[in-house]
């Protein structure tokens, strides 16, 4: 077995990206994700790669756009306020169908907000952020190991579907250290006949573009893209079930919130409460099938580091036929296992609204 090493979540993302074949990183410093840039700055020059600190998040996402269009595996990373600045580029990347990996190590908001962990960019990540009809594949790691494995997965999905994969992490997972192993990863490479390589005067020119002045043409492009999205919804949803076999009270949580929730579920089980946890790993596509499989459930609790964003998708996934309550902290605060346990007990007694 590969050696266990201790690494920060942010560093795990950077190392995994390099192992996934990423040799171009463009970014701009912002807490709490700067370790990614620092790692890349140290490593890239030694392996023939490029680390470039851009003048802004706007410039860095557009460097990513250019590099992706040139056919290379490329990434940028930032934290919440910086992701808002990248929204323009994310929309262009979607409209031009080029693959990219973008990391958001979330902090509290809105505005400059704070620097403590948060999950309040859920809407921005899963419902848009930039303008226009588009989706991003949104992956939510809950451990340092997953920071690595989902980064590798994210690059693969981005190439496979020619779109952005976003790693939606948070300050806690980014800053914490845990043991991690890097198994030898087999990297799939994808043909990119659309890439900007220079024509060598041997083929018609390739154009990477999101402008379609004829509405019929733009509509067709959007419909095509949504056929692709439907395929992703069918094939790529990922989640983890924990004690779900006979669960009546189902806690739903991703990322750091799921770690806290797991403790609470384990304690609840010791008290004889039939609690379980659904941990979405892909936030888009949302793992609706996990909720269809939760046949013994009578109540759901969405545990979030936000004012309640994922809860809307939980309600949709359960078709609003079971009570769904919110157990949350915001602004950089994290719910304690006890707070989650209290919510579980309340639901167990049937007092859930």
């Amino acid at each position, binding site marked *: 077995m590969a050696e266990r090493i201790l690494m920060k979540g942010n560093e795990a993302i950077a190392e995994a990206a390099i192992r996934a074949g990423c040799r171009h990183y463009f970014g701009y410093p912002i807490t709490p994700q700067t370790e990614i840039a620092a790692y890349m700055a140290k490593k890239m020059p030694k392996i023939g790669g490029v680390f470039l600190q851009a003048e802004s998040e706007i*410039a860095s996402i*557009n*460097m990513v756009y250019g590099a992706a269009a040139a056919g290379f595996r490329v990434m940028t990373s930032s934290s919440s306020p910086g992701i808002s600045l990248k929204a323009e580029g994310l929309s262009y990347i979607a409209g031009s169908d080029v693959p990219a990996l973008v990391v958001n190590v979330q902090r509290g908001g809105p505005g400059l907000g704070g620097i403590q962990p948060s999950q309040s960019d859920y809407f921005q990540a899963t419902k848009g952020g930039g303008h226009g009809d588009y989706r991003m594949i949104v992956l939510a790691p809950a451990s340092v190991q997953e920071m690595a494995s989902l980064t590798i997965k994210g690059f693969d999905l981005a190439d496979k579907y020619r779109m952005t994969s976003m790693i939606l992490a948070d300050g806690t997972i980014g800053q914490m250290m845990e043991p991690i192993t890097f198994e030898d990863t087999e990297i799939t490479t994808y043909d990119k006949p659309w890439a900007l390589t220079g*024509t060598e005067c041997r083929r018609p*020119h390739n*154009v*990477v*573009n999101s402008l379609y002045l004829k509405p019929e043409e733009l509509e067709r492009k959007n419909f095509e893209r949504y056929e692709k999205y439907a395929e992703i919804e069918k094939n790529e949803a990922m989640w983890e079930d924990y004690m779900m076999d006979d669960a009546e009270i189902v806690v739903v949580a991703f990322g750091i919130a799921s770690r806290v929730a797991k403790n609470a579920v384990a304690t609840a089980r010791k008290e004889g409460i039939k609690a379980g946890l659904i941990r979405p790993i892909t936030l888009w596509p949302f793992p609706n099938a996990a909720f269809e499989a939760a046949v013994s459930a009578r109540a759901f609790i969405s545990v979030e580091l936000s004012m309640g964003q994922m809860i809307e998708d939980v309600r949709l996934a359960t078709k609003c036929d079971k009570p769904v309550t919110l157990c949350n902290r915001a602004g950089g605060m994290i719910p304690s296992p006890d707070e989650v346990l209290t919510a579980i007990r309340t639901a167990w007694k049937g007092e859930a609204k």
Partner: protein
Amino acid sequence: MAVVFEKPKFLTDTPFHYCPGCPHGIIHRLVAEVVDELGVGGKAIGVAPVGCAVMAYDYFACDMIEAPHGRAPAVATGIKRCRPENIVFTYQGDGDLASIGMAETVHAAARNENITVIFVNNAIYGMTGGQMAPTSLPGQVTQTSPYGRDVNHCGWPIRVSEMLATLEGPEYIARVAVNNVKNVKNAKKAIKRAFENQIAGRGFSLVEVVSACPTNWGMTPKAALEWVESDMLPYYPIGVYKDRSAGEEK
């Protein structure tokens, strides 16, 4: 019969959408002639802006990408850092390069990014119908400065070439014009120099081309070219503002 004039290979067969009398056609052709003469069309990758030249991706016969407004130098940076062996150029207008994209322009120049920038300055936003640009002249009437540009209210036009030439980074900064035959010939020389610099790995080269917008200036094409001479060039003098390798061959 001997062929005495033909379309450069670097231009596609797509007819230009530009207004009658617009010098964009001349500037496109100059870029295309230079690329053909240097024999780098097969290696070229172009970045189109947002603005009148947004559809430049249909006209240049190389691989092309259309950048968000003002971001062309950043997009070009991403491409060039991945494919340093390719010849990467941007083609941008004044709103794109000198207003919304000023940060990207200045920093690409400061990094001496090995790209070629063609900057078309016609002192107006053309595509959106004639609004005030960062380069509109004092007193110039536009849709958003209907009483003439009041410098006390909205500031002074920016001399991009002079400003960039103060930076340590860039290799070559020149301003040319396309309002008469002599100036067109000199413009081509500067554009050629800007591409040769990239081929030689010398770094960031920007050619500011003082152009005209008869439609939005509300002038005939001839009057517009005369206005370039009488009003534009006194504020935006032609010249080479920086040439680090002056005198060196390519």
